[in-house]
């Protein structure tokens, strides 16, 4: 349902562009005949509702049309080539954020106040820095000052890609890490007031075991939801991070399509990004059911 609404929004947005797309593509000196042919090819000569039916029917079959600027490419092909890079980037940074965020949150919830204040400072700083700024600082420190990682670009073949992914992933994890840290801290504090934790302390369970076995599992539930909800922000961050590091992902394709006014590609990428966000939310709900034994009984 929401996916349908998204398709409508994308479709309407692109139709609302002032001006004639065919003339925009062919240039001001195109003759009437080639304009008419292109319009027919893009189904722009049909009434609006039939255009939508044609578009939506195509979408359901996985056909997003052809690129307007380079007609030899299908939009689905462009997305298939670039999306994996973006998903790997988002996936790796989600893992980094989980590790860093959970550690920061648990440490902050600990007994020492100075550690709490320090880690909350880090969280607030990360939260207020845009990912591209973190990316630039990383480039400055790790590729210019220390020359450890390349400042951008993309390798040839798989193991080679990894070193190009390190800095972008860390930069992008700056979006999610502070959110996770904040949530984990709060729920760790809440959980540690529960009776079962007191009982475990009374039984003489060691602090490390206490945290791993009793506190952590309970903190992970809100984190699952958080990761799902923020998937959209990760994709949005990835678009910017790809521009900073020159990764040939889906965001770079979008930016290129935007500057070339390649309407079908813009339309396709925007729609797919929304579908990704919707499915991420569904997956998060599902994982929640699996992770939390309490929701299974109901």
């Amino acid at each position: 349902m929401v996916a349908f609404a998204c398709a409508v929004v994308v479709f309407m947005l692109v139709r609302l562009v002032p001006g004639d797309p065919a003339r925009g593509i062919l240039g001001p000196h195109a003759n009437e005949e080639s304009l008419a042919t292109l319009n027919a090819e893009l189904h722009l000569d049909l009434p609006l509702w039939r255009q939508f039916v044609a578009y939506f029917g195509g979408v359901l079959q996985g056909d997003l049309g052809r690129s307007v600027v380079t007609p030899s490419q299908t939009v689905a092909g462009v997305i298939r080539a670039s999306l994996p890079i973006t998903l790997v980037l988002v996936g790796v940074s989600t893992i980094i954020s989980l590790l860093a965020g959970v550690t920061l949150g648990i440490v902050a919830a600990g007994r020492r106040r100075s550690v709490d204040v320090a880690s909350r400072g880090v969280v607030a700083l990360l939260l207020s820095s845009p990912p591209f700024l973190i990316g630039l600082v990383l480039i400055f420190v790790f590729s210019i000052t220390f020359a450890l990682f390349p400042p951008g670009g993309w390798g040839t073949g798989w193991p080679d890609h990894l070193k190009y992914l390190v800095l972008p992933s860390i930069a992008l994890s700056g979006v999610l890490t502070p959110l996770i840290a904040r949530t984990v801290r709060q729920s760790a504090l809440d959980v540690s007031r529960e009776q079962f934790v007191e009982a475990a302390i009374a039984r003489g369970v060691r602090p490390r075991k206490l945290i791993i076995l009793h506190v952590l599992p309970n903190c992970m539930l809100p984190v699952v939801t958080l990761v799902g909800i923020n998937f959209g922000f990760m994709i949005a961050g990835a678009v910017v991070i790809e521009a900073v590091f020159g990764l040939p992902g889906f965001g770079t394709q979008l930016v290129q399509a935007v500057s070339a006014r390649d309407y079908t590609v813009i339309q396709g990428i925007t729609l797919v990004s929304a579908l990704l966000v919707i499915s991420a939310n569904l997956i998060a709900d599902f994982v929640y059911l699996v992770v939390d034994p309490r929701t299974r009984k109901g």
Partner: protein
Amino acid sequence: MRLPTIWGRFRSSTAIVVGTAVLCAVVLLCIVVPWVASSSVNELGIPLQAPSLSHIFGTDELGRDVFVRTMAGGRIDLGLAVAGVSVSLVLGTLLGTLAGATKVRSLDAALMRLVDAFVAFPFIVLVLVLVVLIGPERSLGPLPPGIPAVFVALVLTDWAWYARLAHAQTLSLCERDYVVAARLMGFSGYRVIRHHLVPSVFRVNAAYGVGDAILFVIATASLAFLGAGVQPPVPEWGAIMFEGRAYLDSAWWITLMPGAVLAATGLALSLVADSLLAKSGSGQ
């Protein structure tokens, strides 16, 4: 509320004092510096000078003073954030409250599906597409090119988040005794919304709005990296950093100094926002 109580509450939180102080300092600098600066925003000088007493943020590749440009950029970024958040806040709160309170099921459903559709897009992606559709080169009155498009795109995307928040709050408020009572007493829908729902929804949304201003600044600056933001040579934080990126190895100050100002502003905003949210008792 009497003034002493406000002040008492205000002082009770160090975070809010520090945040407000930093914010005031940045705003003041943004207003004063471009106005009294000896070198104007686009005046050329010796290029790529390191920070010194005469140019405390150094100069860029054309010899322009980075400090003056950063502060002039702050006018644009912060101005856009204040204007954009206010418009989205009012628009989103009203529409969300209306959808939550209306008896017309279809209106509620239609509005909220529209909100769902807007919220489903990754924020920057939708903003970027909208900026391009509106036309990034368009200028309006005294505003430099790019700003109207960025403003409209951000507001068109952002209102939906406030509408969603307002909708959820309204649904829970409508169960409250005082709203039920107002309805039973036969008050008109307009009166219930205007006097009983909007004030309380608005307070919570406004607290979110302060935090949202960071997102606005970040989005405005990020757009420059995607080539769709405020157009050079207009100084804007993202645009300055984007131009400076090519010189990161020889002149880090062009990029990192405005970045530090941006981060400090964001930090100050989040300190204020967190304290306000804690006080407005969000989520009741």
